[in-house]
């Protein structure tokens, strides 16, 4: 199959899957809604709430998957993912700083702006720490990610503890640390949606650059790429998208790892096909994960980050083992 045919078929199938999952999510949950009454007035508030949640799942799922793809290609590391590399915690720390620290400047832009700044800082830090000479070895990068992750997480907890007195509970921070698609602020969802939409479109336009970069920086330069400039732009896009996702939904891990690899298994590594399909698959995956999070317990709901981590952890080990011979070089 040509890449073009793969893309077309994939787009049709995944769009259908996404639409089905979206409608399923309207029914799923504590309160039962009969199919015939989906549009009845008495259920309207509940359906609206669930639709907003699903929409947020679509935005965040697509964003995190594309961020994962960018990092895997640019860093030439199959285990790269915004959560694993600490970019998400960086964004989380930034956002928490804005929320709990009571930053009032920049108005409503404070939280997403701080999340983006945190993501960018963490990205730069991990890259600098992980770099050895001109290369970025797989393991040093992961270790740098682990360090940034744990430092950012402990700073987050510290921040939460010291600001409880101001009336923002530790419980809500913990809830947010584990991720949730609950919509608190429609403006934030729209803003994040726009940022992620722009990020996904840029990534689609740079799909060929991602292909060439995943071969190596030197060959990419010989093929006419402005390597440093392109890398910087793609890092900024990955940070923007991660920051937007984290500012709205907290730390939902491993999506950027699971989704691109699963899609790659089916369609192969060509980013021209992979980027749009991973965005769609990520959207579907997160809405699905949210349905599980809302229905798995007899009452109440599980943080969605628990579901993705439960799937993502073993998947990470699987990838680690599959690539170990190549990674140890």
């Amino acid at each position, binding site marked *: 199959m040509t890449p073009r045919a793969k893309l077309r078929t994939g787009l049709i199938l995944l769009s259908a899957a996404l639409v089905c999952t979206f409608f399923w999510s309207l029914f799923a949950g504590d309160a039962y809604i009969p199919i015939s009454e989906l549009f009845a007035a008495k259920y309207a508030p509940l359906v609206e709430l669930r639709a907003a949640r699903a929409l947020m799942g679509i935005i965040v799922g697509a964003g995190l998957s594309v961020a994962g793809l960018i990092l895997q290609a640019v860093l030439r590391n199959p285990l790269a993912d915004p959560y694993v590399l600490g970019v998400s915690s960086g964004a989380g720390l930034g956002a928490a700083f804005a929320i709990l620290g009571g930053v009032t400047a920049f108005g409503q832009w404070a939280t997403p702006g701080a999340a983006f700044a945190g993501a960018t800082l963490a990205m730069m830090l991990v890259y600098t720490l992980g770099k050895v000479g001109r290369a970025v070895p797989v393991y040093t990068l992961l270790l740098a990610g682990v360090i940034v992750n744990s430092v950012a997480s402990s700073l987050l907890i510290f921040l939460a503890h010291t600001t409880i007195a101001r009336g923002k509970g530790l419980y809500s921070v913990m809830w947010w640390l584990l991720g949730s698609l609950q919509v608190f602020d429609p403006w934030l969802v729209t803003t994040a949606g726009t940022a992620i939409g722009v990020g996904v479109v840029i990534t689609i336009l740079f799909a060929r650059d991602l292909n060439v970069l995943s071969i190596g920086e030197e060959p990419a330069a010989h093929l006419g790429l402005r390597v440093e400039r392109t890398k910087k732009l793609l890092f900024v896009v990955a940070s923007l998208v991660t920051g937007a996702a984290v500012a709205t939904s907290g730390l939902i891990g491993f999506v950027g790892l699971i989704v691109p690899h699963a899609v790659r298994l089916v369609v192969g590594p060509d980013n021209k096909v992979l980027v749009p399909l991973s965005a769609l698959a990520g959207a579907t995956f997160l809405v699905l994960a949210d349905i599980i999070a809302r229905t798995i317990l007899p009452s109440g709901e599980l943080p969605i980050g628990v579901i993705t981590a439960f799937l993502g952890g073993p998947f990470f080990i699987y990838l680690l083992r599959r690539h170990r011979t190549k*990674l140890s070089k």
Partner: protein
Amino acid sequence: MNAIEISRVECGYGGEPVIKGVSLAVPRGEFLGILGPNGSGKTTLLRAAPGIISTQKGRISINGTDVRSLGPRGIARQVACVMQDNAALGAGHLAFSVHDIVTMGRTPYLTRTGWETAKDHEAVHKAMELSEVAQLSDRPITELSGGERQRVFIAMALAQECGIIILDEPTSHLDIAHQVGILNLFAALNRDGERTTVAVLHDLNLAAEYCERILLLKDGRTAALGPPDEVLTTENIEHIYGASVLVQSNPATGRPHVFLKKA
């Protein structure tokens, strides 16, 4: 017009320049070899020629145009490179097919939104035929041997359809049959007089057999430049490499052949 013109170039990686004032003109259609001891600046010079690293002093032009005004894409349409570590590199962790990799050679001609055209497919097909990887087309690059992999990267460079090909020890990880096979390919491509080839080679005897002219570098400066029999003399090699050798002519080809003398 010269394909490559390097005049009084100094360049390096910040700090003390590695190349300290080299001038070189490569006429169109020539097969030029660059030799020299480790650290003499061979690879640095190769990276400077297509503008991968910028010059601190001097000027480099490709087909009469300054590299700085050509831009990376412009250069990539005129100069293709095959580097030494491709064979070992294994194209990272991603199982791109051979066809995928060779198609990447078309990058300098492709737009962000468009797909490959019939012309691109034709160039890819031709390149795979030339470097004899057409039968591997659908195989993942990660499953190939070092020799096959290097041929794939050669096909990628050929798909760029450039008049100038730069090779940095393209055969260093390969056994003798593959070395000769690959150099024969470039010699054949060079024969039409249109394609210019500049190769850094490690093996003095391979260089003597295949190159029309040889540039001998030492400490970032030109030590000798000319046809193999003028450059690869006993005195030159003993002086530049510091090894005792005996140079005689290869009975099969008449080219100089370097024999090592045990101390």
